[in-house]
């Protein structure tokens, strides 16, 4: 029997100007599915064609941020905290739309890097845990 559910864990990602983000370390299956669902847009159906969807890059970037982001240290123009912790997704989306474009891109880049780093760590963890064949060993078995 193997463990297939992780404890909730968070990471703090440093940003410029002393700011930081608090993000989920991993997404659950449900959160991952919701992120994918929010990343797609329907393609208009032409006569006789089956309905389908395609990736919307703009929506996908926002879905990624919304999936991971829990809190941050950002403040408004008067220095008051921009509260997003425990806020419903619609409220967080509204705040994300109101911050500076540069700040949004910095948040997006930080979370993309975080996702890539955790994916790499997971891949390494799986190899260590299962003793999965490395490419070298696979090639050797084919020869």
């Amino acid at each position, binding site marked *: 029997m193997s463990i297939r559910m992780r404890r909730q864990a968070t990471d703090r990602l440093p940003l410029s100007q002393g700011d930081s983000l608090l993000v989920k370390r991993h997404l659950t299956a449900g959160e991952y599915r919701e992120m994918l669902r929010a990343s797609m847009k329907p393609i208009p159906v032409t006569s006789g064609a089956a309905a389908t969807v395609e990736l919307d890059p703009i929506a996908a970037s926002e879905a990624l941020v919304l999936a991971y982001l*829990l809190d941050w240290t950002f403040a408004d123009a008067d220095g008051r*905290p921009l*509260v997003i912790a425990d806020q419903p997704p619609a409220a967080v989306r509204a705040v994300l739309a109101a911050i500076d474009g540069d700040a949004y891109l910095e948040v997006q880049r930080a979370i993309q890097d975080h996702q890539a780093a955790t994916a790499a760590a997971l891949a390494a963890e799986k190899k260590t845990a299962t003793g999965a064949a490395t490419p070298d060993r696979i090639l050797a078995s084919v020869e």
Partner: protein
Amino acid sequence: MSPPRGTVSGALGQIKQGYQIAAVLTGWRIQPDEAGGAWRLTATVQAASAFYLTQPDLVFVVVHKTGAWRWPVGSWEQRGTSFTAQLGTLQE
């Protein structure tokens, strides 16, 4: 914001387990239990996770302008869309 005292009510609240949302509640109301000492939450369930609601350390969270109020959830019951729970001491 100053902490709520006496009977309080609001439009939207959440039951959380860690950072996960176990339930979204509307039309919530908190009042002293008749037995005294505890607080009783009544609300309408808009959405709920059958998994996270069964997990330990549930907290009722209400967002206000500068943060959130959090009450630990003791026993709880859901009947249809009706949700009731015993709450612990407010954590700020």
